[in-house]
């Protein structure tokens, strides 16, 4: 198989991995500011937010099997809610983040309710339609959203936590906030993905009808996944607005929705951190290609994307797994399971 096989971990193993992974990630993230320039730190902050966007998308796509081409809708809802709140004088950053998350979740609930009853292509098209609808609304509802210019000059108030006031004006301070929020959100998504609920979402992805016949109310579970994904996407949107001090309608356009799709497929949708890898690889590739080829990096990027679609369905992670398991197979003897010998099977009544 060209893709990694998922095995249910169980609560204890999943928790262990989360703790180990969390510590390593935290250490890695803490090192970053020490080794990069302030400009690169800004870039790293943006990439972390993209990672969250992609991971939230993959909860729907890689785990539940729903291809949404309109996640930008919740990105924009979260972003605009944050912008509006801050511009109107809200000073609690945590409150703003919470507002964006809950607002996007509600939008996900309403829109998702209509979407989850449809299959594959129709689901994708409806999410696309909703995304474009919100984009058009943001573009034209100028009094509220600022029209095509969007909302500019969004302030970034200091973080007030446990009696302390921590200013966030510096790139470093904001990076720490983003890194913490993204890490916590990722751990939350990991918890969802490795829970029994996550296993059932995967079953729904494989065979929705069989899942129904095993007692899972498929529509309800899909809607739940949709809402969770929308919530995390809204959070990412709020962070991006805080980063750039602006909210624009482009946040809602379908090409923005296409980004996490591409990242997840490039990095590998079946592995939890695959999309994050996709974000990093895409960003690095884009930088490298555009510095070498200046004008024609899109051509190479297009070739890579096409190549991935044709040959590397599992994305980078899938390719790595294939390579790794091929090396393992060379070292250990590999027992074929296609034709089991009858005498090796013991049936329930003892006959062979």
């Amino acid at each position: 198989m060209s893709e990694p096989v998922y095995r249910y971990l169980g609560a204890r193993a999943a928790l262990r991995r989360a703790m180990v992974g969390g510590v390593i990630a935290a250490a890695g993230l803490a090192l970053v500011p020490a080794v990069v320039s302030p400009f690169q730190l800004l870039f790293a902050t943006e990439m972390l937010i993209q990672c969250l966007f992609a991971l939230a998308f993959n909860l729907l796509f890689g785990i539940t099997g729903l291809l949404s081409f309109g996640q930008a809708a919740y990105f924009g809802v979260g972003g605009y809610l944050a912008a509006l709140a801050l511009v109107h004088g809200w000073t609690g950053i945590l409150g703003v983040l919470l507002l964006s998350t809950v607002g996007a979740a509600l939008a996900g609930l309403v829109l998702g309710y209509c979407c989850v009853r449809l299959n594959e292509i129709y689901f994708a098209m409806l999410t696309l339609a909703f995304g474009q609808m919100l984009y058009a609304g943001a573009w034209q509802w100028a009094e509220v959203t600022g029209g095509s210019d969007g909302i500019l000059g969004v302030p970034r108030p200091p973080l007030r936590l446990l009696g302390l006031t921590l200013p966030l004006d510096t790139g470093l301070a904001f990076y720490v906030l983003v890194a913490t929020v993204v890490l916590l959100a990722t751990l939350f998504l990991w918890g969802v993905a490795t829970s029994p609920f996550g296993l059932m979402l995967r079953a729904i992805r494989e065979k929705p009808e069989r899942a129904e016949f095993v007692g899972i109310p498929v529509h309800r579970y899909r809607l739940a996944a949709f809402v969770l994904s929308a919530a995390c996407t809204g959070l990412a949107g709020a962070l991006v607005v805080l980063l750039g001090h602006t909210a624009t309608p482009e946040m809602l356009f379908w090409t923005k929705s296409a980004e996490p799709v591409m990242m997840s497929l490039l990095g590998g949708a079946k592995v939890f951190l695959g999309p994050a890898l996709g974000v990093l690889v895409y960003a690095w590739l884009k930088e490298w290609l555009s510095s070498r080829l200046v004008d024609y990096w899109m051509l190479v990027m297009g070739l890579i994307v096409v190549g991935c679609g044709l040959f590397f369905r599992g994305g980078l992670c899938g390719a790595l797994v294939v390579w790794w398991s091929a090396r393992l197979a060379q070292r250990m003897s590999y027992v074929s399971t296609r034709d089991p010998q009858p005498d090796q099977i013991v049936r329930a009544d003892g006959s062979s």
Partner: protein
Amino acid sequence: MSLLETRNLTKSFGRMVAVDHVDLTIADGQLTAVIGPNGAGKTTLFDVITGRLRPTAGRITFRGQDITGLPSHAIVSRGIARSFQVTNVFPELTVADNFRVAVLSTRRFAGRHGVRGSAARAPAEVARLLREMGLQSYAELPCAVLSHADQRLVDIGLALAGCPHLLLLDEPTAGMGPAETVAMTHLIRHLAQHERLTVVLTEHDMQVVFALAERVVVMHQGRIIADGAPAVVRDDPLVRAAYLGQ
């Protein structure tokens, strides 16, 4: 009290009537076989009973409750399970995970053990199912690499996971060789006798039918044309006409 009762059950697709005013009563513990030529409506009957299709008319009562028109997952959580003619498992999940999905979901909705209890009991249940089906050595393999017959076992295991009262098996030996058919027959008999399970199966293989069934129901063009002990049904002229006339 009968376990399952259908009254005047009808399912039509436009002008084609697949299930035609069927009155069927299944008693607790009675191993019933539903047979009939191709196109008789056997699978459609199963589909309607389990909520995969909505009946055009008629009612279905299960353990005294009306289940007509309920969605499949609700019917399943009330205790009816089925396996499929075309093997229907979760191909990329491991065998153990296939069973785990079924165990965790049905327990949750049956509300028997509560959320924490179900998670704690699940590994034991999964192990039990693996033993029952004889699939322990394949537990960590993805279903897709298993042979057809083994995938059929997973399919049945999925149906068993919810501890159903009524198990509907749709052509369980379809596509199997002689040795596998014998093994499946043993398994079904074991399930019917030791698991407090009422089994209803559709079959084309008459040897399996006569080896297992206490009662045979014959369908033809959507209607029941014979219903009784296997030996009686075998000699029924109407049944002969239906099979030979095809």
